[in-house]
């Protein structure tokens, strides 16, 4: 077994997974009652219902029963893996909807993360190595812009410039359900910009710190070539803070997708979540909340495990 694997403790992972269950339970409970506390119902909109009709509809969906009963029923269903029917999208269940939307969101989110780490990491390394040079200032200036301009501004502008004026990419939407580079490049880049900026700043800082550390000075004094110093001795240390950034960043990509999917008319779970919240589609919102919470817990666990693999000092 490779040495680094031995640093992962199975009991640790099991413990974390077990802690995830009560966490999820709390998330479900809070979300359930918050959702129900909001005024309005999935069956009300501009259309006014006759009282008799409304009562019947509530009964059909079990919404005429006391809230705590509905809550217990829902918990039972979720425990069996049944998220129930969507209250608004009447032809589909929540699981079917997530099945339709998740591939889109996951592809765009995953690509954006990958892109952000490659580009952001690269830029950060360059900046860190050329600290206080014109290149450094230039890159960090751009990075600061990237952090400060929200994606609901960047998105429409990017769509206008690269989708309409210089039409090299789609101005939004998918190609009848197909994800092609033509359709998803703009959303992926827009989503990744913020993280490119954040990652490059983190990478720059940790690179500068690593290059100043004692073991690098020792290596230099022993005459190790600069390239080898950077690749073998500085990078592995400098990259550590990025790993701990994976957790929060993946959360950000998930929530960021809410905006991006809206701006680019993408049928991902982020769009479903917003529509669901506005329409009081309780089951759909709950399903997405549970999915998001699970993903976030998992990504944090993955980050911790990666950390243990990369940093010999960390033991669980």
């Amino acid at each position: 077994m490779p040495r680094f694997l031995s640093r992962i403790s199975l009991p640790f992972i099991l413990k974390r997974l077990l802690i995830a269950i009560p966490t999820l339970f709390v998330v479900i409970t809070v979300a359930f009652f918050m959702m129900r506390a909001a005024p309005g119902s999935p069956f009300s909109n501009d259309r006014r219902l006759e009282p008799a009709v409304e009562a019947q509809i509530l009964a059909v969906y079990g919404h005429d029963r006391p809230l705590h009963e509905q809550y217990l029923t829902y918990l039972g269903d979720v425990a069996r893996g049944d998220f129930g029917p969507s209250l608004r999208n009447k032809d589909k269940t929540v699981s079917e909807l997530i099945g339709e939307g998740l591939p889109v969101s996951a592809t765009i989110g995953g690509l954006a993360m990958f892109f952000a780490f490659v580009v952001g990491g690269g830029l950060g390394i360059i900046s860190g190595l050329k600290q206080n040079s014109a290149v450094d200032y230039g890159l960090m200036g751009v990075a600061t812009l990237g952090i400060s301009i929200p994606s609901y501004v960047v998105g429409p502008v990017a769509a206008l410039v690269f989708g309409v004026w210089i039409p090299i990419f789609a101005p939004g939407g998918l190609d009848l359900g197909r994800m092609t580079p033509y359709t998803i490049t703009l959303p992926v880049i827009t989503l990744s910009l913020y993280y490119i900026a954040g990652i490059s700043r983190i990478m720059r800082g940790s690179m500068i710190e690593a290059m100043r550390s004692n073991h690098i000075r020792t290596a230099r004094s022993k005459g190790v070539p600069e390239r080898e110093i950077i690749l073998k001795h500085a990078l592995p240390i400098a990259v550590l803070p990025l790993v701990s950034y994976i957790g929060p960043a993946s959360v950000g990509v998930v929530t960021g997708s809410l905006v991006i999917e809206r701006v680019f008319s993408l049928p991902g779970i982020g769009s479903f979540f917003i529509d669901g919240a506005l329409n009081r589609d309780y089951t759909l919102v709950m399903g997405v909340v549970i999915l998001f919470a699970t993903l976030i817990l998992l990504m944090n666990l993955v980050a911790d495990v990666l950390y243990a693999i990369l940093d010999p000092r960390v033991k669980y």
Partner: protein
Amino acid sequence: MRNKNGLLSASLAALALSLAACGGGSEVSPDTLRRGISANPDSVDPHKVSSQWENIVIGDMFIGLFTDGADATPVLGMAESYEISEDGRTWTFELKDANWSDGEPVTASDFEFAFRRILTPSTASQYASMLFLIENAEEFYGGEVEADQLGVEAVDDDTLVINLEYPAPYLPGILKHYVSFPVPEHAIEEFGDDWTDPENIVVNGPYRLEQFRTGDFLRSVVNPEWEGVEDLCFTEVIYFPYDDLDAVERYIQTGRLDMNNSFDGQRTDELRERFPGWVRTAPALITTYYSINTELEIFEDTRVRNALAMALDRDFMVNEVLTAGYEPAYSLIPPGTANYTEDGAQVYWADMSQEDRMVEARRLLEDAGFGPDNPLEFEYTYRSTDDNPRVAPAVQASWLEIADWVRPEILQKETQVQYALLRQGDFQIGDGAWVADFNDPKNFLFLLQSNAGPMNYGRYNNPEYDALVEAADNERDLDVRAQMLEEAEQMMLDDMPVIPMWYQVTKNLVDPTLTGFVDNADDVHRSRYICREG
């Protein structure tokens, strides 16, 4: 160092290359009609929907006894002919020879089945009440009578009889509405709730659903069994639920949409310039009105209600704040409503100038006992969507102008929440709108009948008004009926339980190279009438 840079630029180059290689969208066939429908359909089951955007999709798939003409007037659909009994309560329809898309014949029993299904509570149709004019429909819905007592009967395969509670001259308007569409009994029995899945769905209209990706698109293709299949200009119709109007403009500019059923009314002029010939508006059967909670003590006095109503400077709001084309409203029923009198009813102060109205409003309030020592304090809530947030400050300003002891507070509510509060009667003065479901005055006046329950937001209760509207229901002579309805509306307007604000317009963007799109108040435009020039 160089190595690192090299790696990075190589990967970027590779990415760029792969993107360039796949660049360009797929070509769209000229036989495809692409319609923006502004929101995702809840369902394609005619019994489970309640919105206009769903009607766009569903109306291309199903045809009722009546159907929409190009201008949305009711024309014969599945019915070949019909007869109305002497008392106007029994309608007998002879059906055409027509088939479902799977080759099964469309029979009278499909209609009977459909009416029973939508009126069965477990179907959970939000629109069931629209059919309560059918004999025993309400009782059947309430579980008081059996299905065989419902006033819809398939006499044989080709003959359907509908009995009504009262003569309703607007029945064809209801029979072309999706609440009255037939549904395939054989397919629903076979597939249950999954009958609307694209692989199972069976239709009797020109297009059949082929794909339904939530929040992305729906695609329908020609139904070869449709009687007019040869005349269809498009072999497929794709519906896009785009709700972001900026995005819609981008899609139009890049040639990805042929039509869209809405646009930002504030930008009408700009859109006319950017997309010449695309902007289409027409008077719609939609009235925006503010409900006054008549159960509150301060609003009990009709003088107070009229004063607040007349103070609002509608001309300013309509011309300076709202969508181009909106008209100031001085009645609840919009002009152009069928089966109504020529001029309709009007608030008694409609002919006064705005200055005079202000003076009169102040006088009325003073008469009602308000003044510096007894200020009129109230709250106005409005919906967060559309033009409503923009117009709210103008509404407040108008009221403030009456006198400094008139103290309105304005409060924005999420649209969903606003309607919930209105229904619960938990408001003082509240903004809302009504879109007619069928073209008849009754569709507006019933909102203020005391038995309308939560739909009568302000809980207006006038037995004389109720009696008049009910009497009109039983009147066979259309002219007499119209007179009675006008009298009822006038009575209601004098009481001013609702403040009519403006009549809305339809807002469509339509490629000028398309023919067959006819502006109409119902805002229904079936794909089968639309063609592309050249």
